[in-house]
């Protein structure tokens, strides 16, 4: 059975399960350092998760996001700083004493156990009696919509179902913190979207403090209360998805979160003049001079025909993306721009068009 079929056939409940009431915890990473063979994978990162908050760690491969999550889980020893859960320093505690729930990127169900036995495992470790174990495990499975599949083995489930069982297994012990290490990356696109929504719904219902690691910006922006963008072992910016998208603090964030056009221009007294338009500069003040302005595709306006207002451009490519269309155009000076527009406008490669800018504030980096 494919993931998509499985999602259609398995009923997902909408009511929270009473026995899974969780007391949300505060999580603090304070100046955490992790060094691998001279390379600082974590370069003194500090992050605080409020009780019940859903925070996503977002960044490119090798930025240290998984290391940060594993340090919080106790799977990596840290070389400096402290990690506190509800004020208790857990830096020296082994993983099995930290009272966390974790879902891994790779399928991690125990192959020799049934689904129900997998979910019961954490309760067995906590010496919960058998009858209660059964009830609680069944409730956790009901929560993820797999109550009917308790007797199956992992290899009899689809990837999406396995991750849902892993989620039930992580939650059944009522952990103080839920850690999600790219749990959706092995799944196909449609299941990813459905499962991330289910994760978010369950997290909201249970109110569990959650740290979610992903390299997929769309995923992070869609589910998290706050997103921390990481780069080279440091947190570049932390804020709500809207803050990150609308007011990126650094060029890296502007570049990494969402699509951006780099338009050459000149900065003078906090105002950028680029492609015949003026933009207010976002973020910290910068010295005057030539800059590259980061302009979102939705801030570029496309108009067909030579008579329209704006700069002359030639269509290079155009893609239909469902509810919108994205077109790449080349300005006369050779600058490539990505434009997001309605699907009713259907430019073809080679067409001559005109482009303009909405003039929203932009971030910028000094031109090389």
């Amino acid at each position, binding site marked *: 059975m494919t993931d998509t079929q499985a999602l259609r056939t398995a009923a997902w409940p909408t009511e929270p399960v009473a026995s899974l009431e969780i007391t949300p915890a505060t999580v603090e990473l304070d100046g955490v350092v992790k060094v691998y063979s001279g390379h600082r994978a974590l370069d003194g990162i500090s992050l605080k998760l409020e009780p019940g908050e859903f925070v996503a760690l977002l960044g490119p491969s090798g930025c240290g996001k998984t290391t940060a999550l594993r340090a919080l*889980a*106790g*799977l990596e020893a840290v070389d400096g700083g402290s990690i506190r859960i509800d004020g208790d320093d857990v830096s020296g505690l*082994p*993983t*099995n*004493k930290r*009272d*966390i*729930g*974790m879902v*891994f990127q*790779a*399928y*991690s*169900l*125990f*192959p*020799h156990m049934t689904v129900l036995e997998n979910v019961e*495992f*954490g309760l067995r*470790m*906590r010496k919960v009696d058998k009858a209660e174990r059964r009830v609680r495990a069944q409730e956790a499975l009901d929560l993820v919509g797999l109550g009917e599949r308790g007797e199956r083995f992992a*290899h009899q489930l689809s990837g999406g179902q396995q991750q849902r069982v*892993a989620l039930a*297994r*992580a939650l059944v*012990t009522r952990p103080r913190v839920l*850690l999600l290490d790219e749990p959706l990356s092995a799944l196909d696109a449609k299941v990813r979207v459905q499962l991330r929504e289910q994760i978010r719904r369950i997290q909201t219902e249970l109110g569990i403090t959650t740290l979610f690691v992903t390299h997929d910006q769309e995923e992070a922006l869609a589910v998290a209360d706050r997103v921390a963008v990481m780069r080279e072992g440091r947190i570049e910016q932390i804020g709500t998805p809207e803050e990150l998208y609308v007011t990126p603090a650094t060029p890296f964030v502007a570049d990494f979160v969402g699509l951006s056009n780099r338009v050459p221009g000149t900065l003078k007294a906090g105002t950028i003049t680029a492609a015949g338009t003026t933009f207010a500069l976002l973020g910290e003040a910068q010295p005057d001079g030539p800059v590259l302005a980061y302009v979102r595709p939705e801030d570029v306006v496309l108009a067909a025909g030579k008579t329209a207002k704006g700069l002359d451009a030639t269509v290079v490519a155009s893609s239909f993306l469902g509810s919108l269309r994205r077109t790449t155009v080349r300005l006369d000076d050779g600058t490539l721009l990505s434009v997001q527009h309605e699907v009713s406008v259907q430019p073809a490669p080679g067409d001559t068009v005109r482009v303009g800018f909405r003039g929203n504030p932009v971030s910028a980096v000094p031109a090389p």
Partner: protein
Amino acid sequence: MNARRGIAGPVRLGLAPSRVTRWIILGLVAVVFAIPLLSLLEFSLRDGFTGTYTLDHWIGLFDPENARPYRQLFQAIGNSFVLAAVTVGIVLIVLLPTMLLVHMSFPKLRRVLEFICIIPITVPAIVLVVGLAPVYSIVVKIFGSGTWTLAFAYGILVLPYAYRAIQSNLDGVPVVTLSEAARSLGAGWPTVVWSVLLPNLRRGVLAAAFITVAVVLGEFTLASLLNRRNLQTAILQISSSDPWISAILALIALAFAFLLLLLIGRLGTVGNRNRS
């Protein structure tokens, strides 16, 4: 493309032999193996004086009246089983935890461990004995001269086979992820190993144990050169006075080893069936 070249059907690359060729090769190999075994069986059924066929030699081996003359032989068989058990113990207590540790915590050492484990297969038994002789002078001082002490040498001898059996299973199981998942759920290391890892490595561990038993029961050189008595040295010894019994024992030992290897193969197919 085929049509352009004038070929009607699918192209045979000629890499795999045909079904008939495979059966011919299998038949030839079977004959090569079967001839000495059948000869041994035929010899064990032959009466030494009349040349007729009889089951007397087979029945005589298990006749309680012959317990006394065959006492040393049965003692040697007992020694071999004790040696097999101790050697399996060494594999499970020393090799298995070492491999788990290297696999999970020191993956860079895997090649080193593999190299060390393969060495015994590349060193001739006589060279091993020359090296082990002075070691055994110390072993005798510490543990005495009991035959079971030979298991220390056998523990080295079976390394290549046991290592391969366990490693192939380790490669197919996400040991690190499973152990991390178990630890995140509150399990300590002993529970992780006993309740999570071993059940998933059962096939490899059993295969290693069975192959260890097979190797130990068939080992002659080390026991003979280090002056210990086991099944194989006893078979040689008795062959001068009662060649039929030595032939029967050789057949039984081979059948037992064959049975063990069959079990190892069966373990593999059982695992595959469960997966499917």
